[in-house]
């Protein structure tokens, strides 16, 4: 059992131990989808949504597997269930609201095979979060991911118009900015204690 307050869970996941900048989770989309602010924002929203879904799924699976006595299937069950659930949601959104799909749905496949989602499921299980804590954790992690992504996108949009030296290609510049952001986020240490 874990007794962290919800606020502390949230601040920790969002700022102090930001998923991307401190835990290195979800780096691929962080580098890939952070070139435009608009895309980054929508991606962030989609991540937050998937995190919620998978957090709830993971909570359920974890307890179910313990119940039937095969906790060692956790990893494979997590990934299979999360991936399928997200795919179902994706199809559902595509059918029901093409606009929402354009805005959020197209990011969903990208997110399922992303460390941040599985990492969230594993961490919340490791830490023994209760359902409510797990949900807040997912929200915090999603918010932190979005924040990092959007800040990154803002800077990259600006850098797109800059005359960087030839050796600095897209990925390298993104990594440098990420490093600096990570330095910056160290300032939040100790908050939410």
């Amino acid at each position, binding site marked *: 059992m874990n007794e962290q307050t919800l606020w502390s869970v949230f601040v920790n996941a969002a700022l102090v131990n930001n998923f991307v900048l401190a835990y290195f989770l979800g780096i691929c989309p962080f580098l890939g989808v952070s070139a435009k602010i608009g895309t980054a924002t929508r991606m962030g929203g989609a991540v937050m949504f998937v995190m919620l879904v998978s957090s709830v799924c993971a909570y359920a699976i974890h307890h179910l597997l313990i119940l039937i006595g095969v906790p060692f299937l956790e990893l494979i069950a997590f990934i299979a269930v999360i991936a399928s659930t997200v795919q179902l949601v994706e199809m559902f959104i595509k059918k029901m609201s093409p606009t929402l799909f354009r805005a959020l749905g197209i990011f969903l496949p990208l997110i399922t*095979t992303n460390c941040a989602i599985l990492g969230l499921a594993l961490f919340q299980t490791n830490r023994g979060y209760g359902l409510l804590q797990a949900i807040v954790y997912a929200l915090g992690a999603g918010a932190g991911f979005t924040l990092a992504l959007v800040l990154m996108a803002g800077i990259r949009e600006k850098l797109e118009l800059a005359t960087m030296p030839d050796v600095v290609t897209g990925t390298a510049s993104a*990594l440098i900015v*990420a490093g600096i952001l990570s330095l910056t986020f160290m300032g939040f240490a100790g908050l939410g204690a």
Partner: protein
Amino acid sequence: MTSRNRKAVIGTDEFIKGIWRENPVFVQVLGMCPVLAVSNTAINALAMGLATAFVMLMSNTLVSTLRNFIPKQVRIATYILIIATFVTIVDYAIEAISLDLHKSLGAFISLIVVNCLILGRAEAFASKHRVRHAVLDALGMGIGFTLALLCLGGVRELLGDGALFGVAVFPDGFEPWIVMILPSGGFFTLAAWLLLINHMQQRKEAKTGRVQEVPR
């Protein structure tokens, strides 16, 4: 773009390309999370690299073996299942071998499941090639990945701890650069490697006067 003649591709190329030309870390920039997260020491980097390589090897083999039996619609799901299985296996194996190592790699062993690199090789390569080639490909990619991780882990451990594989390298009194072991150090080190590689590439191009096709 001209299509290269596929038949002419011999096995060695499958092996070599992953190490340098299509290096998963430095060229394809894939699977960055474990690369950055567990490259704070050379040991971790090596272990992570080997674990990933093992999973890739096994899943590539199995996928390639089964490639003609797996229906198209469910192939991704199948690959994920296969990969997850081997990851679980590796996870338990490492835990059995060394609890400490397992602890320091943390969740990132499990996260090999979602490493884009492995699924990428399964889908892009193993599902279309014969087992022998798939194995070579996995080996090449795995070694490339491990080497890249070592490049990072080495630099980070050296500066961040003054040691390499846990063995002190600098004389006493060395002031460690703690930033290198911190997350930002991971980003900076990888960026530095990329800059170096870009620089070398450009120097080479400038020399040969040829604009290489670099994936942008």
